[in-house]
């Protein structure tokens, strides 16, 4: 393998699902979370679009689904920041993390669909403003969670002004802040401030190879901020179909998926694969036939490269 084009941040692999938070049938999304939990996946995630009335409120759904599952971690994919004030978001996430025994993570984005946001009474932000707001929000969220810091929490930003707010509750485990991002400016924020990066395959206009350039923005920014590139876990939201014939990328039998995802993991350092699935059988197949196979192939490859 050529180390110039191959990236590996050395994280163990995580596998999860991306479930539509539909309200029809009412409990479908919860049931899909339960399926993912029982199947042994690491993560179940829900998108957050409060302006879409046919979806559940993601924060309520996360709480309800967390209470009905046992081992799986849960996250929004990704939280719509402009409609979720950061201090309350931090406390709500920590509350759930405490209730669930440390199973909540925080997927977050700068916002999109601004007409929808504005229609719900939220702010309309330009791309630059939304990134600035996200950076302020991350500072507030981390400040709220950090109860070991005895100082007054003060983040006097342009979009959020928190001064003298009490800190707490402290979460049960170090909650990962995972940001959905694509453009250089926000990728640099990811490198500086986030614990994870959560792009979707379908939004990569030029396909997976784009990840290399995006990774570079994150890595450079992390290093410049005195962090390690490996401080930022790389996720990928994926979509596909299990078919008996090989038809294309993630369109084929589970063994083909395993090879393809292994390739992605070893080429782009992706260590979290989140599959869009509202289908019990697909989720179970992913958990039983793809996840372990990718883990094994990646371990083999890592083992091999160590000996080379």
């Amino acid at each position: 393998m050529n180390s110039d084009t191959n990236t590996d941040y050395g994280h163990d692999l995580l596998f999860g699902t991306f479930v539509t938070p539909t309200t029809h049938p009412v409990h479908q999304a919860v049931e899909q979370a339960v399926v993912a939990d029982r199947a042994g996946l690491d993560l179940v995630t829900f998108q957050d679009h409060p302006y879409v009335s046919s979806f559940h409120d993601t924060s309520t759904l996360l709480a309800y689904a967390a209470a009905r599952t046992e081992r799986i971690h849960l996250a929004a994919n990704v939280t719509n920041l402009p409609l979720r004030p950061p201090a309350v978001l931090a406390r709500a996430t920590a509350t759930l993390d405490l209730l669930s025994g440390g199973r909540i993570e925080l997927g977050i984005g700068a916002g999109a669909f601004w007409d929808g946001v504005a229609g719900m009474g939220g702010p309309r932000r330009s791309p630059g403003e939304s990134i600035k707001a996200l950076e302020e929000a991350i500072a507030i969220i981390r400040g709220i969670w950090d109860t070991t810091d005895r100082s007054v929490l003060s983040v006097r930003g342009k979009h959020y002004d928190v001064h003298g707010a009490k800190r707490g509750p402290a979460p049960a485990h170090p909650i990962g802040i995972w940001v959905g991002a694509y453009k250089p400016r926000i990728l640099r924020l990811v490198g500086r401030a986030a614990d994870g990066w959560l792009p979707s395959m379908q939004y990569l206009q030029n396909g997976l190879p784009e990840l290399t350039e995006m990774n570079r923005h994150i890595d450079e920014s992390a290093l410049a901020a005195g962090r390690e590139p490996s401080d930022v876990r790389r996720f990928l939201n994926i979509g596909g179909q299990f078919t008996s014939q090989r038809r294309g990328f993630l369109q084929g039998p589970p063994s083909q998926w395993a090879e393809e995802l292994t390739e992605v993991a070893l080429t782009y350092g992706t260590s979290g694969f989140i599959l869009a699935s509202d289908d019990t059988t697909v989720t179970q197949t992913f958990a039983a036939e793809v996840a372990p196979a990718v883990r094994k192939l990646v371990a083999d490859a890592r083992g091999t490269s160590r000996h080379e």
Partner: protein
Amino acid sequence: MTNYGHRIRFGVEVLGGSDAPGDAVALAVLAEELGYDLVVFPDQVGEGGADALSLAAWTAARTRTVQVAASRLDARARPASVVARGAGSLQLLSGGRGMLVLGSGSAGEDLGVVEEAVAVIRSLQDTSRSRVSSAGTYHRLADAEPGPALDREVPLWLYGADTALAALAGRVADGWVADLDEVGVEGLAGLNAVLDRAAIDAGRDVREVRRSVTLTSGDAADVSALVALVVDHGVSSVVLRVRTGDATQLRTFIDDVAPAVREGAERALPPGALSSRPVRRADVRARRRPGIAYDHVPDDLVATAVEPGDAAFGKVRSTYLRGGNPGLVLRQRNAAEVASAVGFAREHMHLPLGIRSGGHGISGRSTNDGGLVIDVGALNAITVLDEAARVVRIGAGARWRDVARVLQPHGWALSSGDYGGVGVGGLATAGGIGFLARKHGLTIDHLRAVEMVLADGTLVRASATENTELFWAARGAGANFGVAVAFEFVVDEIDQVGWAQLAFHAPDPAAYLEAFGRVAVTTPRETTPFLILGQGIAQLMAMVDSSDPDVIVSQLQPFAEIAPLMQQQVVIAPYAAVMNMFPETPHNGRGEPVSRSAFTREITPGFAAASADLIRSGASHWYQIRTVGGAVADVAPDATAYAHRDANFALAVMGANAQRLDRWFEPVRRQSHGLYLSFESDRNPDRIADAFPSATLDRLRRLKAQLDPDNLFQDNFNITPARDHTRNAS
């Protein structure tokens, strides 16, 4: 004395647990076990503590009956729009147990913000509109999508002890709560009066706003003081504030104090003064329709009844194919409730009455404009009564997809129709022309007994040995005689079946039809094909009751040779998989379906030619032929009210415009004989004679005169009572 007539409820407000919210949940779960009606989580996000909305949602997932409230929500902490969505999800996920209490209780709170928040939350729950806006400086909506659609609005209460807040509660809220140690009994009386005045000024009924106090342990032991709160100050929710870990206090209050308070209040008040009947808001009552005794809906039905102003109305007003705007939908949970609903309907003979099970009626008007609907959709239990004899009891409200799913693990199936969303009640009272009909007969041919509520409100069972005439009539004309609540069927041993979907090039529809007709009548009974014929295309769906690939292929082969195949898919699958091909969708029918039906023994050249003209005319967008015959014809025509046993084909045609469709359909009708009532929406009285041969019709009319002489049940092929019946009998 001030009392608003609400049943007394006891609740607990859980304090503490900000760093260990699990303790708060544990106390809430215990409260439910002990019999509390309500648990309240005060929000602590202002003080670095737990988020009440998360606690409420988590607790809802860990409890089953108790109402769960997120309380003392500072109206500035979150966008009210998002709070509304959260409350909506809480309400949906918990099965209607959610509740919101706004107001942090701090004096000098900006009530303008609270009022804006209430307006936003209410607007987003109004799903009768497609977009909502709400002006405001802090909380606003601009063309937002209301929703999610709820069964019951989330109760919205206000918390606080000052005059302005009480007045606001009187104007807009569903309830008001104050801390007793803060207001005191005197203060409570004063604020109640303020609230009442504000409510009246706003055109509301003072009973719309429930009154609640939160007690600290000091107040919680004085039974007579608590009775006085209920009797003299109209308090109907008594909420005890308890710290996490203080289980003893929780127990003492509910075991010793609560029953004494309840008893004392009941003794002091006139009998029957306290009730759990919901009091609807003035703006909800304003949408009521004339001629309905809304305030006299029987007690057992009030909790589930839906009026036009209710949140659930959008979900129940229309059916799968028909838009509707009924005045009242009664949703029963058991046979006794059905009897009370029928009694209520008898007092409303001047209004249309629809009977609804699965809401897929075409001939049956299971919704209407301004009338009543008796909806038995909740009676959907499916129980195996006798494993060896394969006897299964199925509630009228079950859907065929669920029936198939439940029977499948036993290796059983019951032929119903081609669509899993159809309800048992409508189909099993009319016929049931399904994918296994040629081998196993109609759905009604499997019926062993039916339980029905008759027009006089009695619940009867009809079978081969009891109420035999009704048993005969229920199989083909059931909707005229009562509301079926459950059916007992003997089901068939069927596991895997062959399932084919074939698409043909069919430029000449008449030729295709004739060929199809020839093949179909000679096909072995295992195969039941349904044909959809369009302009240039024929789609064939066929089930073969066999899991042997050779049998399946050999029986399908003659069909595959009718015309050039464009697409084909043949699989071996469980019957249940075919019934579950399409997921449940909300019922948002608009307008009226226009559907025509005819039976024919064979597809004659005349029938085929008239059909081809109809298809080419464009007057119909749906032309479907189901094959019958076989086992269906083994049953004698007079054995059931479904009499057209000799037909081999049942045609169903749908169009957009009745006049236009009829112009092209009449020639087809002339080439056929009789019709299947479930596919005929024409209300022309001639159609009754097409549905029932005269001997059958006479017999039905005589029974109708006995069982429903006032003709209460007439929404589906009304059989008018025989007028001369009493004279003949005497």
